[in-house]
């Protein structure tokens, strides 16, 4: 059946963690969802300590949710995951500009 999506998420809080690690979340999914919705669900329902830029412009233009999804730089708002799939989520840069988990400092460069 595969009614779950597994998200392996890069975690690192420089204030509290010695080094980065990955944490897996098994998220109930009755249908496809975008990576951003998946993260929103994890933060709301499973683990409030996770940090990501939750903001969504809905246009795939603001770059707020840009991250490495399965090792490829992509927009979390427009990248869809199917039930049964596993997805690996990492910050778009690390250690440069990295702040916490999937959050990096907004850069001046386009």
């Amino acid at each position, binding site marked *: 059946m595969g009614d779950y999506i597994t998200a392996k998420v890069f975690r690192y*809080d*420089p*204030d*509290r963690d010695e080094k980065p690690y990955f944490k897996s979340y098994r998220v109930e999914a009755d249908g496809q969802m*975008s990576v*951003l*919705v998946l993260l*929103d669900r994890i*933060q*709301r329902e499973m683990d*409030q*300590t996770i*940090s990501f*830029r*939750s*903001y*969504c*412009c*809905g*246009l*795939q*233009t*603001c*770059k*707020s949710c840009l991250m490495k999804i399965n090792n490829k730089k992509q927009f979390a*708002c*427009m990248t869809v995951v199917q039930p049964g799939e596993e997805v690996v989520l990492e910050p778009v840069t690390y250690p440069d500009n990295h*702040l*916490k*988990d999937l*959050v990096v*400092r*907004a850069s*001046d460069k*386009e």
Partner: protein
Amino acid sequence: MNIPSHDRMTCDVLIIGGGGSGALAGLEASEGGKLKVILASKGPISQSGLTPTGNGGTAFSGSIEHLFKNMVTAGNYLNDQDVIWSMFSQTQDAIEKLKRIGVTVTPLGPHGICVPGVETLSLARRELSKRSNVVLLEDVLITRLIHENGKIIGAVALDLITAELFEIVATAVILTTGGIAGELYPRTSNNPFGITTDASGTGHVMAYQAGAHLIDMEMMAFVPLPTDPRCLNLRYFPEFWRGPYLNRHGDVVESDIEGYLGGSYSYLFLQKLAREFEKGNGPVYVDQRAMEKPDHVSGIRAWDRRRRYIKSLGIDPNENRIELAIGSHFCMGGLYVNEKTETTIPGLFAAGEIMGGVHGGLRLPGYSFTQMIVFGFIAGRQAADYATGVLKTGESSSYQIVEKERERIFNFLEQKRNPVSLRALKNRLQREMERDVFIFRDKAGLERALEEIGKIREEVTRIQVPSFKRFNLDWVRAVEFSMMVEGAEIIARSALYREESRGFHYRRDFEGRDDRRWLKHTVVHLQGGNLTLDTAPVVLDRMRPEE
């Protein structure tokens, strides 16, 4: 853009909010390099707030008279006419300024132009970053305004990365914090894909707490929204809202959306939809399957991309019926300002959605971008002039205010004996707002809402969020929530006060517009620590309702 370590920063002009109005105010205030400008935004500019979610439609036809008349008619005469006349008189100038920083302005239909939100913000951000007299504080939330002797003298800021709380001393402050509609209701157009943009109205509440007057806060716009959050983007395209609208029995609720001023944004249409739901005829659908396919050629890349994405999700409204609910959209009420964006407190300015008296009882689509752009520039200029002309405040004694704020904000991280969950409390507030401060209102419901809001307020100090400090989403939301509760009360009290029906404010116990008694603003302000209600005249210097 590293934030220097600090307990206190100083500037001539502080801008709070990183949307369109804030960024453009920043450009204008820092022009010439003389004044030190700080722009504080809770997210990165161009990656936060509602400006990037907008489709850029901006009301701007050849005739000021035409736009003006549209706005006043739609707003049911609750617009301050000197303010909006001034807005249209200066739109051309504002557009020229945008073009100068490289913004692509595209003509759009007979009444407007497209000013792309993200592009405008990215270009403004790049320009601001280059200026040595500008400090961009991104990922910084302003939590309180500091005032002394009736003047604004600064603000308290929380760095969301380092969790440092610090004071910003400023001669002039511009509030460009946007709207209050999004977070107060369970459903809202403000959240693409159902993901919150955190439109919490913190600016409204901070200004109120500092003594500023807010007007017409009962004027909250609602819109039909797809129940499937993936479809929220359909809102951006009028071609998906032509109708017909059918109820669950297949009966036509509305077939002529063009007949309404404002189309699917019309309060008359929303009242019609709400009645269907009340009669148990919901859900309502927009069903365009039998309609001729609309012409899609827009030439605007972001729109085409959005359309393609909608289609890729299998939710093409030309091939599916779309189930609808009603959600919040925009608050027409806000800070009491004049055409110079001056609020009722010296040194405090406001631009963008936070302004009251611009749209009156209904905001027409496209008119908020005009407001954002024009008043963003005006506020920047006015605040700069004020900061240049006024005697600088000396050393203030804000230490205690900052420490009190520190205690309040860090309390959310503390372990509690009987904690409440932020989510549960927020859901409670949103449900209450949807039940009693929604499309139809009456005295009993509004009083019930005020009672419930009062109970929720008592629980705010029991909110407990995870205790880490760096980029803690729930912590920020808890801080914002504490202000939302105040905002909810302000709205409910204003709604109870206006004893008539006008625009989006519909009182079951006071049906019909009553120009004799209520062609005026409701005013809310804090006096002696109490919420105080009052009225103020509307500026009707160009157009009056027919007697």
